[in-house]
């Protein structure tokens, strides 16, 4: 309680500035961990967009210390309610825990847009959110399937593959795993193991090294993000199997782009982090000006292959 009061006071101190701009809607974005390279890109993208559209709305954003920092997100939303902002776009760190706060914000007449990770449908209904509550975000499952499918097309029939998972329980980790599993099943690949490396390079390196010992016959790797791809590629190099094992990832971060240029990574799924929050803000502004948006506004995902990268003009 004390923290909330303190938060309210702090926000109140900043209030005089935003009140003056009352005619322009105030848009607040609640993001995930800014310590994550991908979210840093999301943040830069949306800040640039807000700067370009200064005349249309005022803007602020908050990020988290780490991926599972649910409390900070709840506190941020409470703060924004107190502050009476007009639009909140939120990328929930947890698909259930944020629902009550979102409900409170809506009751206070604030337009809320759910982006990146979809709120749990059942829980959302139970807690009284509209049945077809708007979600703006990428189709992680489709993206992972695309990457996995492309891997399969580049491997012989019944090839042996492993999946490197993200954090157990994280929504996008689950969806990406589902997409990869679908690619495995549709292409009759032989899945040797599916293990987590918690999104982390070092852990993925250790995991992959040990998997290679247990299954020397691995031919393909599907990784739930690109940070883990970095560790996987090093493990393959250390085992002297560069070129024998094909790797696909997700996020398309800069270091992996380099590896794709060198032919060490087959493909990665780009889902345009720069535009992710921007799309959510755009949707929020539409609703604010009276449009009725529901359902799933899919943001693009695109498979980028090493060939694409190699064909690109040198910068």
């Amino acid at each position, binding site marked *: 309680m004390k923290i909330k009061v303190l938060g309210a006071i702090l926000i109140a101190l900043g209030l005089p500035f935003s009140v003056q701009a009352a005619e322009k809607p105030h848009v607040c974005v609640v993001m995930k961990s800014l310590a994550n*390279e991908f979210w840093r890109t999301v943040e830069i993208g949306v800040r640039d967009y807000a700067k370009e559209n200064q005349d249309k709305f005022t803007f602020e954003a908050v990020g988290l210390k780490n991926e599972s920092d649910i409390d900070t997100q709840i506190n941020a939303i409470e703060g924004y309610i107190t502050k009476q902002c007009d639009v909140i776009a939120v990328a929930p760190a947890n698909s259930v825990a944020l629902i009550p706060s979102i409900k409170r914000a809506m009751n206070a007449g604030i337009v809320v847009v759910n982006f990146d990770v979809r709120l749990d449908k059942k829980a959302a209904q139970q807690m009284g959110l509209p049945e077809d509550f708007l979600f703006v975000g990428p189709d992680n499952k489709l993206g992972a399937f695309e990457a996995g499918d492309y891997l399969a097309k580049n491997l012989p029939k019944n090839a042996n593959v492993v999946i490197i998972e993200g954090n157990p329980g994280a929504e996008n980790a689950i969806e990406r795993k589902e997409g990869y599993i679908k690619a495995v099943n549709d292409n009759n690949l032989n899945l040797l193991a599916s293990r987590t490396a918690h999104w982390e390079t070092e852990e993925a*390196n*250790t995991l992959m*090294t040990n998997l290679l010992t*247990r299954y020397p016959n691995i031919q393909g790797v599907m990784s739930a993000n690109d*940070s883990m791809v970095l560790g996987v590629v090093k493990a393959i190099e250390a085992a002297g199997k560069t070129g024998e094992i094909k790797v696909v990832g997700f996020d398309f971060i*800069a270091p992996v782009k380099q590896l794709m240029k060198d032919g060490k990574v087959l493909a990665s799924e780009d889902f345009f982090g720069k535009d992710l929050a921007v799309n959510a803000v755009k949707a929020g502004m539409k609703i604010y000006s009276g449009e009725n948006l529901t359902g799933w506004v899919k943001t693009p995902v695109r498979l980028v292959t090493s060939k694409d990268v190699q064909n690109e003009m040198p910068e």
Partner: protein
Amino acid sequence: MNTKSITRSLLKEAGIGLALVLLVVLFALSHDKFLTVSNISNILQQISINTIIAAGMTFVILLGGIDLSVGSVLALSAVVGAKIMTEFGLPSDMAILFAVLGSVICGTLCGAISGAICEKWRIHSFIVTLGMLNIARGTALEVADARTIFGFPMSFNAFGAQTIFHIPVIFIVAVVIVIIGIVVLKKTVYGRMIYAIGNNEESVRLSGHNPKFYKIIAFAICGGATGLAAVMYMLRLNIANPILGVGFELNAIAAVVIGGTSLFGGKGSMLGTFLGACIMGVLGNGLLLIGLGDFTRQIITGVVIILAVILDTYRSRLEAKLTE
């Protein structure tokens, strides 16, 4: 040296050594690839970073302190080293030299600052290093702008992948650090002083020595070891990332405690820490090889940590009996 004291010094590491041998035998029986040269080489590679951090941590824990910031300091040191290596357009030899120095100095400074604050205001290191954990992590993110840094000189990357008779170079570095640690703790005045302060700080002070100085040095050693571990990390993965090393402090503390060092200070050894790190590494590798799922592995790791320490209490009781 009489028979009693020889038995006693053997016993000191026997409990933990026995646990390690047991684990190795168990895994060797359950999976035929466990005892292969390449797998052992992998395990050695995997334990190197934790061994170096834990070696530094041993100094601090022997004093009855703790350093929770090592994971973040590792990230900061790596990011600083990586920036030096990639951003100043230095010739690759110079770049590598300055990067290594930069990482180690950065780690040493973080440790020294934590230690100095603990001593100046008499705050428990638990709190100060908790603060440093956040400061170092935030600084690392700021310096790297939350991005992964890559594109190190080829010679640097190639060196990290090298092995000598199948022994990874980064493991050799780890062993050298452990040996230096053993010598410092056993043979130098400074080392004996660490034990003395851990046992009874007041009596050290009354005997005319200033414990503050020795304690700050211990934190600096811990930080310096962490900075060196950051270099090992970059050698191993050829990238630096400001979010690396989350939770490394707990692995290092686990290795030290499994190795028989008392969290209350004054009791323990560097060799024990090394064996503790080995146990952690063997466990991680072996459990995966025998094909256990993620969650089961985590449970078993927890159980083994506790069992190792229980085993150690029997060892101390036996030792106490022999002393009588």
